[in-house]
C-alpha cells in the first residue's frame, strides 16, 4: 500500500483536493464510470479538468445497456454538485510493476477484443454474464468495478467454475476508514457476486 497523501488528488468523501497540474497514470471515478487519463488539472477557480481521457462504463442504448469506452475531455466546474467521486494518481513504482507484468511473454495467446464489450454486469434490472462463453480463455485489458473499488488488470482468465482470475492488477479502493488506497497484485480472484461489472477494453478504442 502506498502513502495515501501522495496520491489522492481529489476525494469528495474525505474532502480532499490538491490543486495543481498532474501528469502520469490517473484514475478517476465518476458515479459508476471510470476515467483513465494521463493528465488532470485541479484549481479552486476552474474546478477539475481532464484532457483526452478514456471514459469506461455502461450506458443505456434504447432498451438495453451496452459497455462503452469513449475518449473525451472532462470538466467538473462545481464540485459540490458534480458527480466526480475521486481522482487518484498511481505512483510510478507501482506502474513499473504493472508494466513488467504486462510485457510477460508467458501468455502469447491472449484474446484481444477489437471493440469494448461487457463481460459481466450485476445491475438489478440489467444483467449481463458472458463468463461461461469465455471459460478457459485469456482476455486482455479487463476493467472491473467492484464494491467501492476499481480493478484494472492486464488480463483476466475465466476458470472452469466461471470465476474471473485477474492477472497483473492495479487495485484502487477504500479501507475500513474510507481512506483511498492503491495496491498492486499479481493475481486477484473475485467472486462474481461482488463484482459490479467487468468490461473488456477493445484495442480499436485504445488506438484512437
Amino acid at each position, binding site marked *: 500500500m502506498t502513502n495515501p497523501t501522495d496520491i489522492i488528488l481529489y476525494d469528495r468523501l474525505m474532502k480532499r483536493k490538491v490543486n495543481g497540474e498532474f501528469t*502520469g*497514470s*490517473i*484514475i478517476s471515478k465518476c458515479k459508476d464510470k471510470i476515467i*483513465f*487519463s*494521463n*493528465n488532470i488539472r485541479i484549481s479552486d477557480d476552474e474546478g477539475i479538468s481532464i484532457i*483526452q*481521457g*478514456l471514459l469506461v462504463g455502461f450506458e443505456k442504448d434504447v432498451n438495453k445497456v451496452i459497455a462503452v469506452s469513449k*475518449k473525451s475531455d472532462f470538466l467538473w466546474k462545481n464540485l459540490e454538485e458534480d458527480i466526480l467521486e475521486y481522482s487518484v494518481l*498511481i505512483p510510478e513504482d507501482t*506502474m513499473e510493476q504493472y*508494466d513488467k507484468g*504486462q*510485457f510477460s*511473454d508467458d501468455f*502469447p*495467446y*491472449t484474446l484481444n477484443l477489437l471493440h469494448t464489450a461487457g463481460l459481466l454486469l450485476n445491475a438489478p434490472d440489467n444483467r449481463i454474464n458472458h463468463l461461461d462463453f469465455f471459460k478457459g480463455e485469456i482476455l486482455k*485489458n479487463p476493467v472491473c468495478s467492484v464494491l467501492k473499488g476499481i480493478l*484494472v488488470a492486464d488480463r483476466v482468465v475465466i476458470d472452469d467454475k466461471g470465476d474471473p482470475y485477474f492477472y497483473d492488477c*492495479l487495485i484502487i479502493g477504500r479501507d475500513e476508514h474510507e481512506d483511498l488506497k492503491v495496491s498492486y497484485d499479481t493475481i486477484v480472484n473475485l467472486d462474481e457476486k461482488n463484482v459490479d461489472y467487468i468490461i473488456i*477494453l477493445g*484495442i480499436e478504442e*485504445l*488506438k484512437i
Partner: protein
Amino acid sequence: MLLFENKQRKLLNILKLTGSPFKKFVSTGEIKEDLGVTQSRQELLYKIIDIMEKNDNIILPIIGKVGTGKTHLYWALKHGFHNYNIVYLSLENVYKRFYYNTYSEFVENMGVGPLRNITNNLCNKWGATERKFGFFHFADIKKIRDSAYKEWNSYFEDKEALNDAINAITAHCLDPYKKVEAERWLLGDLMDFRDLSRLNLNYDLRKKNNAFTMLKILTENAKINSILFIDDFEKVISIAGPIKEAEEEEEVFDPSWLYGAKTSPDKITAEKTLDKILELYKIKGLRIIITLKSLEFFNEIKSKIKEKNGSLLSIVKEPIFLSNFLIDDIFQFYKKSIEYFFGGINYLDYSIDFPNSSDYYPLNKKTLEYIYNTTKGNPREIIKLLIKIFNEIISSNENIEDILKKYQ
C-alpha cells in the same frame, strides 16, 4: 593401513591408464582452452585490455610466428575480458559471405538472452512502453516502426536492409504470433519466401547489407562492447596471392574462362573481404584484433589499406609482438598443464603428493631446459616435444631415468 606409498610410481601408473597430459598442440577458436597465459605474457594481456578500453574503433595487430600462441591468446582474452563480447573469426572460414558468417558467429557468441534484451530495449526506446491514457500499453507496431525508421533513416545507408531490420526487431518484441519466426531471422537462420513474407521482410541475413545492418545494430546497442578477433589475417593477402601458372597443376576448370586471365575469383573475393573488413569501422565501438605471422604481412596490409582509404590508417594501431616463451615460462606452463590435467581426471592429490613448485615429475628441470633450448621457446614446438616424451614414458617399458637421459 598403508604405511608407505610410492607416489612417483602411482603417478606413472595413472599416466599409463589415462594417457598423456599433452595432446593438442594447435589451438582453435572452436575448442575452449582453459589454461591461462604464462607470467611473461600477462603484461601483454593487460596492454591489450588497456588499448581496447581506451579506443572505440581500432584495428589492433598482434604479430607472432607460427605456434607462438596467437589463437590461445583469444581464449586468454575471453577469460580475462568478461565485460566484452569477443568473437573469434578464422578468416579462412568466413571470407566467403563475410558479413553473414561474421554475424552468425557474433550472435552465437552473444547468446539469445542479450539479443532479446537488445530488441526489447530498442522497442521501448521507440515508444513501445508509451502508456495510452496513462495506463494501457497499446503497442502500435506501425507507429513504432515509423518512429524507428525516422530515428535511423539518416544513419543507415541501405534503406531496404534497415526496413527489414526494424520489421524483424519490432515483430520479435511486439508481435507474439510472429515472435518465433522473427527470432529465427535474427539468429541468422536461412528462411524461405513464405516465412519472409509473413514477417514482411525482403531477404534473410544472407543478403550482405542485411547482415551488416544487423551487426551494426546489435554491436551499437548491446550493453557490452564487442571485439572481433580475426585470426590469420594474412590470409587476405595469401588468398589474393599471385595466380598459379597453368603448368603447376592440371586444372579441370580454368577460372579465367569466366573471370578473365588476370584476376582469379579467389583474389576478387579476398579483395572484397578486405573492403568488407574495412567497412566495419562504420560500426561504432567495434574493436578488431587481427593476428599476423610477420611484420612484412603487416606492412603489406597497411599499404593495401592506404590504397583503399588512407584515412583508415589512423585506426590501425602499432602492432603488438607475441614472442616465444621465456625460460621461466616453460616451467610454469608445464606445472600448470600437469595440475590442470590431473585436476580434470580427479587426481586431486597431485598437489599434495607433489607440493613443491619445482617438482616436475615425471620430467625434471634438465629435461625442461633441454626442451626449451631445442625448440627455442616456441610454445607449439614445446608441446610437440612434450607429447613425444610423454608418449615414450607411457608406452615404453624402459626406466624413466633412461628415457629422460635422451632429453637432457
